[in-house]
């Protein structure tokens, strides 16, 4: 693959089918929607969580609480970055104590974002359990973390970059893989 060449690994239909399957898996694993809440990690976990909640509503007929988590203040690399990641609002307008929380993100890579998200959640309350749903798992974990629900497993090299585009943010639905310039 020549540098910067993009290969599409998921299209709109692919994303839709993966999310439909994940919605069913979430319901199966948790035996319904009781005590279930979805929390999307900014940025692209947020529209994904929203879509999952709609699918769950279609399947079960019940609405489940939807929250937004900003993990910037929990990052472990703040003193090393040479820029300021913009801190945005965490919007979890319900108690997560005793709830089954499904964290939603677009890509699972090193696991550091999920570590930060779990710390952030613990500061908001004491969930009964936390599960993780991701659209793409690309491997290369640096922490002992795994996803409960995966849209697509994509073996990658560290030199590659996964770009997830979503209609709500980017105007179209697709997942591409790009060779990073080094």
């Amino acid at each position: 693959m020549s540098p910067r060449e993009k290969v599409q690994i998921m299209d709109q239909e692919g994303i839709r089918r993966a999310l439909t399957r994940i919605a069913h898996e979430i319901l199966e694993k948790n035996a319904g929607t009781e005590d279930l809440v979805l929390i999307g990690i900014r940025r692209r976990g947020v529209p994904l969580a929203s879509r999952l909640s709609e699918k769950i509503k279609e399947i079960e007929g019940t609405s489940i609480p939807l929250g937004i988590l900003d993990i910037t203040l929990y990052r472990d690399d703040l003193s090393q970055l040479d820029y300021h990641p913009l801190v945005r609002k965490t919007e979890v307008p319900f108690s997560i104590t005793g709830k089954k929380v499904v964290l939603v993100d677009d890509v699972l890579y090193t696991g550091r974002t999920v570590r930060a998200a779990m710390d952030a959640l613990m500061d908001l309350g004491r969930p009964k359990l936390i599960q993780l749903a991701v659209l793409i798992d690309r491997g290369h974990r640096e922490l002992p973390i795994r996803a409960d629900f995966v849209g697509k497993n994509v073996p990658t090299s560290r030199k590659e970059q996964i770009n997830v585009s979503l209609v709500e943010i980017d105007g179209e639905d697709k997942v591409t893989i790009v060779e990073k310039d080094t």
Partner: protein
Amino acid sequence: MKFKRKDVLGLEDLTVEEINLILDTAEPMKEIMTRDIKKVPTLRGRSVITLFYEPSTRTRSSFELAAKYLGADTSSIAIATSSVQKGESLRDTAKTLEAMAADVIIIRHSAAGAPHLLARWVSARVINAGDGAHEHPTQALLDMFTIREKKGGFQGLKVAILGDITHSRVARSNIWGLTKMGAEVRVVGPATLIPPDIERLGVKVYYDWEEGLKDVDVINVLRIQLERQKKGLFPSIREYTKLYGLDQQKLQVAKPDVLVLHPGPVNRGIEISPDVQDGPHAAINEQVTNGVAVRMALLYLLMTGGEKDEISA
């Protein structure tokens, strides 16, 4: 975006982009204050020292809580019980604090420019918490945050600063900040309490409250420093209250949805009447909440985003 400053000393030299970044960052910080567990680990292991050469309750505790909510450790030096009483100079005190590995020093001093000197002497970051009658940047930023939250922005907004302009660092920081953001700023007060050349800062001067407060969107009421009366700058407290104290009657000439601010502490019934202070237009207690959020934003921006050395360069 990157906040490249080592220190925050005043609004005069902050850019529009920097002010927007601080105010944008303060919004999520305010959300943290509403949680059951008001603490994030962002500044864990960092130390913040407050060094106040003048009395203060809200600014100092606001800074300390802001640092603690972000996970930093804090220590405060009360001058009355410190080695300053034994004759230690500002520079030596600063060097001592630096030797204790302070990451941020927050200073209030009666001499204008003291924080600027301190910032040159130490590699720790310095935040000005008020220097003489010069600047009080975090007060202006929290006033601006409150205005933006209530009014949606600054462009074309009419803001009146009412009272003792001459001795007020709050007034100066507000003037620099608000004019930069596109607001129309006017100062209203007796001629003896308004510096003669204040127009140079881009404000309009009014000695008459009725003209000065007409159609304004915001009135920022300054504390009248009672000791000024002894210097003969105004004849009596009663007369000041009659001519410039903000009451319902004076409020009538402003816009119907006028926002009333006061940096505190309030001389109840002197510069502002109790019914206005406790009324629906005033956001005085919200200002205190916003003050913590704005200071959290500043501490976050100063202490993250790269190594200290490359930033101060």
